[in-house]
């Protein structure tokens, strides 16, 4: 029997045990976690079938990576420690780009939205994974790493490590990590902001492992004590049906394309919520409306103080 080298496969028993522990400890009042039965079922079914739906595209992606590796620019040895350090940074930056695109362009949001569709934030939410990531083609973003000379297996292992890292941050049980850790790494606090639907928190904290990318590229938002995170989508789902969860944004795109095909580029590559007449809400318009309301509230207060 071959020993599995996929970090996600190796971590699966830990995923199961930790979800069980979080539910039980929350029930006993030992930690903060909110579970709901149907929501948990949807998250776990999404996770279970994402592994099946992703398999064919994983094969295509890996074949593509091997082909590019045969035409590599450099040869990076898998046995060198420096190579692992390098692939860690390269993969994590690639993840940041992937994740940002997945939020800021509708065609990729359609594949990613289901991960954000729970109104809860617990370890089971981490397992609410996409069924359509392969179709969306974002796996291609990792291919240049193989062209650079990172062995495809090395990239795949690093991707797995990143996915496993991102599991534990889906919790309300940990309030803050030590300051130095919060400064460098993605943490439960940073990722709660990422899953929040408050306008102030929308489209922030795209990090995989290192939060430094968000700090560098201006997308960082700390969690504020005065504004509790409200989780889910701007327009939360009214169903637990996994098929609707997985495909609702694709159905929305199809409906828009049929209604107005001449705006196809906008429907596909505009930000989520884009419409030709601007009648729908985007993250930017929601943030602008929120900022205007804040200003309106603060202006009379300042006037009174003066």
């Amino acid at each position, binding site marked *: 029997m071959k020993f599995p080298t996929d970090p996600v496969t190796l971590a*699966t028993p830990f995923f199961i045990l930790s979800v069980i522990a979080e*539910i039980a400890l929350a029930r006993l009042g030992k930690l903060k976690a909110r579970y*709901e*039965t149907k929501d*948990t079922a949807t998250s776990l079914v999404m996770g279970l079938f994402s592994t099946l739906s992703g398999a064919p595209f994983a094969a295509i992606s890996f074949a593509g990576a091997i082909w590019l590796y045969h035409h590599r620019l450099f040869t990076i040895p898998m046995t060198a420690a420096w190579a692992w350090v390098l692939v860690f940074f390269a993969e994590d930056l690639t993840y940041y780009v992937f994740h940002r695109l997945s939020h800021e362009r509708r065609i990729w949001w359609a594949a990613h939205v289901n991960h954000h569709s729970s*109104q809860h934030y617990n370890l089971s939410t981490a397992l609410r994974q996409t069924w359509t990531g392969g179709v969306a083609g974002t796996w291609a973003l990792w291919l240049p790493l193989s062209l650079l000379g990172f062995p495809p297996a090395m990239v795949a292992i690093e991707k797995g490590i990143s996915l496993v890292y991102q599991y534990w941050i889906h919790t309300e049980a940990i309030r803050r990590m030590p300051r130095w850790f919060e400064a460098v790494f993605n943490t439960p606090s940073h990722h709660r902001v990422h899953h929040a639907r408050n306008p102030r928190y929308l489209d922030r904290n795209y990090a995989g492992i290192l939060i430094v990318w968000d700090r560098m590229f201006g997308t960082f938002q700390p969690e504020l004590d005065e504004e509790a995170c409200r989780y889910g989508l701007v327009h939360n789902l009214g169903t637990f049906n996994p098929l609707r969860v997985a495909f609702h944004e694709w*159905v929305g795109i199809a409906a828009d394309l049929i209604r107005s095909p001449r705006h196809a580029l906008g429907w596909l590559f505009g930000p989520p919520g884009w419409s030709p007449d601007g009648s729908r809400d985007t993250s930017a318009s929601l943030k602008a409306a929120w900022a205007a*309301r804040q200003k309106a509230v603060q202006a009379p207060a300042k006037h009174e103080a003066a």
Partner: protein
Amino acid sequence: MQLADLIQLAVSAAAVAAMVGLAALATRGRGAPVLDEAAARRWLADEFPDARIGGLWIAADGLGAVARSGETALVLSRMGDGYVARAIAWDAAARAGVKDGRVALPLGDFAAPRAVLALGAWPPRDLAA
């Protein structure tokens, strides 16, 4: 698919069932908070911060509400232990059918097809105009 994959899938499905079962046991008796007028207005203010509420109709069981804001109906319907909000045309809401004291409001959204609320007589006389 090989036998090992099938076994892995079956074991994973059993683990999912166990986790869902545990979640059901741990959360037994917990549901969405019942809405009164103040709670419904708080939810609506969160969901539609710019809307002016002209009238509010709370479901008899407290598990949903409809508010009128101009020509728009703002609908709150139960989703697990929380609520989901949608805005639809008031006319469409007013035309919704009533069966056994429950109104099925068509939300026109694949992700939230309809809201079924115990609103009794519908449309309410004071909000229908």
